[in-house]
């Protein structure tokens, strides 16, 4: 075996094996760039490889891109290799012979993302008409990332032979983009641009904005260029631009003045003024002017100099593209696109708000039920959410199929938290029904105990709760409006629960009794309803829903022992804002908070934290004016 291996190896390194049509010598010429390629320098190597016309070049490029090329440490030769039993299985680039070698003798070549992209672009011409569909798709993707006018011909030629309908449409799209940007005549470009009008894809917008790229130009007369307009800047900025482009003197900063003065101190005096008195800007300016007058420093740029300069020079924005007809068409197309984009963004924001609403609703609805029916604040509600999420995680440990595990996890999470809720109600809460403020403390105690228990059991690290494959990805309406499937699933779940709870409360015996206990427990008791049992069941139900919400939240965010506390205050506010004891109220509260948060985020996109602060402030104020929430119970049922 060993001998056979050695023979193969010697075969592989034999110089005699190097033939005229071999790729290896070419690779060795560019050894450094192939072993450690960088995006900026790899171009010539790629050109050389493509230009060599060797049939192996395409395969080499593909393997290189896929990190399957290795270099032998001892002699620097390149091989294809895959991991196999007992080491790496090498394949000679030219002869295709294979051998197994110890992995330590080889070094894997790992081109970075930028280089891989460059390789992909070089591969375009080989792959555009390749019989393999994935190859063609790769080529088109690479081309889309970097619209190269040189490929226009090849792309157009490949369209007629394209068998895959989707890819054909994509290729035609790219031809339009390429024509719009690099077409031969203004007419063809304008025609292409016009077809882009109203298309809100990011790519389309990119093509349009690239046609409309501008630069600034400052002149004293009307510029000889495709002018987009004049640029009106604030005074300082405008002058700074002129300083930069027209070589005008820059205004002196206070720092420069101070240094100039310091440099000219003679015997404690500058320009006749005592240095110790120069502790105001005005005094320093006067001293500096005196210094400038004596020629020891350049004069300050006065305000009138700036005004004069701004009057003589005009700052224009000019298109890089010289043809006004093309830019006008592009501008018109862009305006049409922008209107559509604005509409779509509003729609997208609305979707996000809806999604947030459904998450808040799910998180809060269990709390609303317990709070409404029993007037009890359950501070451990967040921990029930966490418990549900961990149930999901544990189920995934035992059931590797994500779909099945999800189907098992949802009812199991309900069962676990239902049981926990009932246990807590029996052991703790029922003793405190006439002391609502103390339930707050007792349940808070349960909350920190549960949180710490979760830490002791599962550790402090976030645990993965992976969604099944069919929930990956997003529902894409267009490039602006899209929403991930997981959020849709949560939305659907929230709707289901809304319907289910409405059904339970309005159409079942349990619901009737629950409502009776909510409105007047004593009267209900005298009508033969067992309030104890009802309270236990509602508490269990509320907790169980929290468990299911936990699975849902875990799927889209994270599972940690502290995830409950992230939602608890939001949930309280949802319930309080919405009005206690009413499902519709919770829905209204969740919608208000969700929409508001997204709205504020939209106004101040760079700071999500500020959005939360303002939202809470708003809620505090809101409660001042509607202390019982949006949907308030009226009459006797309102309690006090």
């Amino acid at each position, binding site marked *: 075996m060993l001998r056979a291996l050695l023979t193969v190896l010697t075969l592989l390194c034999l110089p005699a094996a190097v033939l005229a049509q071999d790729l290896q010598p070419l690779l060795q010429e560019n050894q450094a760039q192939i072993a450690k390629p960088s995006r900026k320098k790899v171009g010539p190597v790629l050109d050389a490889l493509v230009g060599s016309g060797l049939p192996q070049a395409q395969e080499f490029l593909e393997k290189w891109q896929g990190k399957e090329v290795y270099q032998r440490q001892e002699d620097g030769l390149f091989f294809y290799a895959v991991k196999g039993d007992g080491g790496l299985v090498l394949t000679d680039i030219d002869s295709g012979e294979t051998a197994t070698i110890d992995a330590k003798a080889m070094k894997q070549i790992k081109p970075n993302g930028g280089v891989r992209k460059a390789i992909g672009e070089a591969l375009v011409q080989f792959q555009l008409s390749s019989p393999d569909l994935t190859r063609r798709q790769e080529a088109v993707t690479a081309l889309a990332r970097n619209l190269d006018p040189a490929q226009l011909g090849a792309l157009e030629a490949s369209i007629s032979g394209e068998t895959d309908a989707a890819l054909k449409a994509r290729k035609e799209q790219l031809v339009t983009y390429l024509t719009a940007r690099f077409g031969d005549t203004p007419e063809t470009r304008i025609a292409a641009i016009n077809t882009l009008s109203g298309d809100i894809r990011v790519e389309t917008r990119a093509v349009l904005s690239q046609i409309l790229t501008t630069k600034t130009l400052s002149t004293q007369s009307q510029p000889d260029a495709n002018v987009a307009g004049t640029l009106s800047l604030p005074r300082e900025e405008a002058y700074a631009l002129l300083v930069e482009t027209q070589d005008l003197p820059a205004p002196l900063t206070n720092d420069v003045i101070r240094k100039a003065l310091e440099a000219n101190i003679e015997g404690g005096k500058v320009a006749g003024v005592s240095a110790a008195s120069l*502790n105001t800007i005005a005094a320093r300016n006067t001293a500096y002017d005196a210094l400038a007058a004596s020629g020891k420093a350049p004069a300050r740029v006065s305000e009138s100099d700036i005004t004069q300069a701004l009057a003589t020079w005009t700052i224009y924005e000019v298109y890089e593209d010289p043809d006004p007809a093309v830019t006008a068409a592009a501008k018109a197309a862009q305006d049409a696109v922008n209107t559509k984009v604005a509409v779509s963004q509003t729609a997208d924001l609305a979707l996000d708000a809806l999604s947030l609403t459904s998450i808040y609703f799910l998180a809060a609805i269990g709390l609303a039920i317990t709070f409404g029916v029993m007037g009890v*604040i359950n501070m451990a509600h967040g921990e029930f959410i966490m418990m549900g999420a961990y149930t999901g995680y544990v189920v995934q440990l035992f059931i590797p199929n994500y779909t099945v595990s999800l189907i098992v996890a949802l009812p199991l999470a309900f069962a676990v938290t239902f049981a926990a809720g009932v246990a807590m109600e029996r052991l703790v809460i029922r003793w405190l029904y006439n002391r609502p403020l103390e339930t707050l403390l007792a349940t808070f105690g349960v909350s920190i105990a549960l949180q710490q228990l979760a830490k002791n059991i599962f550790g402090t690290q976030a645990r993965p709760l992976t969604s099944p494959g069919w929930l990956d990805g997003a529902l894409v309406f267009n490039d602006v409006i899209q929403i991930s499937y997981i959020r849709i699933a949560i939305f659907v779940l929230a709707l289901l629960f809304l319907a289910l709870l409405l059904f339970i409360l309005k159409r079942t015996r349990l619901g009737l009794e629950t409502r009776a206990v909510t409105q007047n427990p004593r009267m209900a008791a005298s009508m033969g309803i067992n309030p104890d049992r009802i309270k236990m069941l509602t508490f269990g139900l509320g907790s169980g829903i929290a468990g299911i919400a936990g699975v849902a939240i875990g799927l889209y965010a994270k599972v940690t022992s502290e995830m409950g506390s992230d939602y608890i205050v939001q949930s*309280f506010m949802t319930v309080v804002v919405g009005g206690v004891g009413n499902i519709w109220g919770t829905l209204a509260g969740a919608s208000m908070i969700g929409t508001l948060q997204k709205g504020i985020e939209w106004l101040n996109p760079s700071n999500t934290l500020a959005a*939360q*602060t303002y939202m809470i402030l708003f809620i505090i104020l809101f409660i001042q004016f509607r202390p019982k929430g949006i949907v308030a119970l009226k009459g006797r049922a309102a309690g006090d």
Partner: protein
Amino acid sequence: MTKALSKTFLIRHPSTLWVLASLGLFTLIVSVLSEAAGTGLISTSFVKTLGKTLCLCLIAIAMDVVWGYCGILSLGHFAFFGIGGYAIGMWLMYARTEAIVAQNLSANLIPPTDSEISDAIATQIFGVVGASEFPAIWAFSHSLTLQLLMVLLVPGLLALVFGWLAFRSRVTGVYLSILTQAMTLALALYLFQNDSGLRGNNGLSGLQNIPGFEATSQAVISLAFFWASALALALGYLLFAWVTAGKMGSVIRAIRDDEARVRFLGYQVESYKLFVFTLTAVVSGIAGALYYPQAGIINPAEIAPIASIYLAVWVAIGGRGKLYGAIIGAVFVSLLSSYFTGGSAPDINLGFYVIKWTDWWLVLLGLSFVAVTLLFPGGIASLFDKLARKQ
């Protein structure tokens, strides 16, 4: 309060006398055993811990008055505590930095302008958060007097406005609790932002270095703050004992027990509540202003909602409606907490599982809340009462 008055007052309330006497004794013992003034049996770091605990006792009795006496379960009093800390912290940072900057700029050939000085100070303070200008809220930070005034005014005004809005709309019970919690959360979130002007998540640090006392050792400084905290606690205790003892105390307790009835009797319930809420907020601010120079750093995490919940728990465990109960609760829980989380409590080996207290202390603490609320609603202080009654 004249001397004669307080004398009779103290005689009528022996528990107050007991508390003040034991506080005095405690202070004496700590002073004698401290590194600065005596044998050094108590380390400086422990003096700091004790001084901080006294400040926590002060806010705990404030909490007791507002909750245990007046029935308002405020889950936001730590916000006032934090504001007091920030107010004093601003001066401490400013003055300390000013000294450094003045010394550094004095090397310049030309004397600095006012704006150069303030820019240099701002760069030093806010360089950490990538800013170099003073936000408007630092306008008074150069003056100790003004900042001390802020310690009183800012928590007071915030409590006044918030309380007025809340009580006016008759927000009561759990709603009010949630609302106060939202207040402290909003404040914490606001301060967490870097742009808040108070150094965001980093907060104000190095507060243990008192400007003007650079040469004084921390042993002495910590003892001085310990004394100040003890004095503040004594005064605060007297104040609250006096407030809760008189006729006003009766009205306040009546509001706790049945607000509607008191209102029908013709009392201005809202005004009483507002007074208690604001007064306790101011005292909390003072407690915070004494606490943070001993802790050395204040940052927004200090006023997260959980801190205020812990405060309620101290009072509940110690015993509501009794001022000394709050003190017992604060001392007991906070010192026990630091004992168990300090890693010094011995692990318990059950053979199949080793109980590590750092892991299990919170579970124990949580369950003890449940136990106390269920089994001892009167808290630890009620045990004392039982003993007293037996005698």
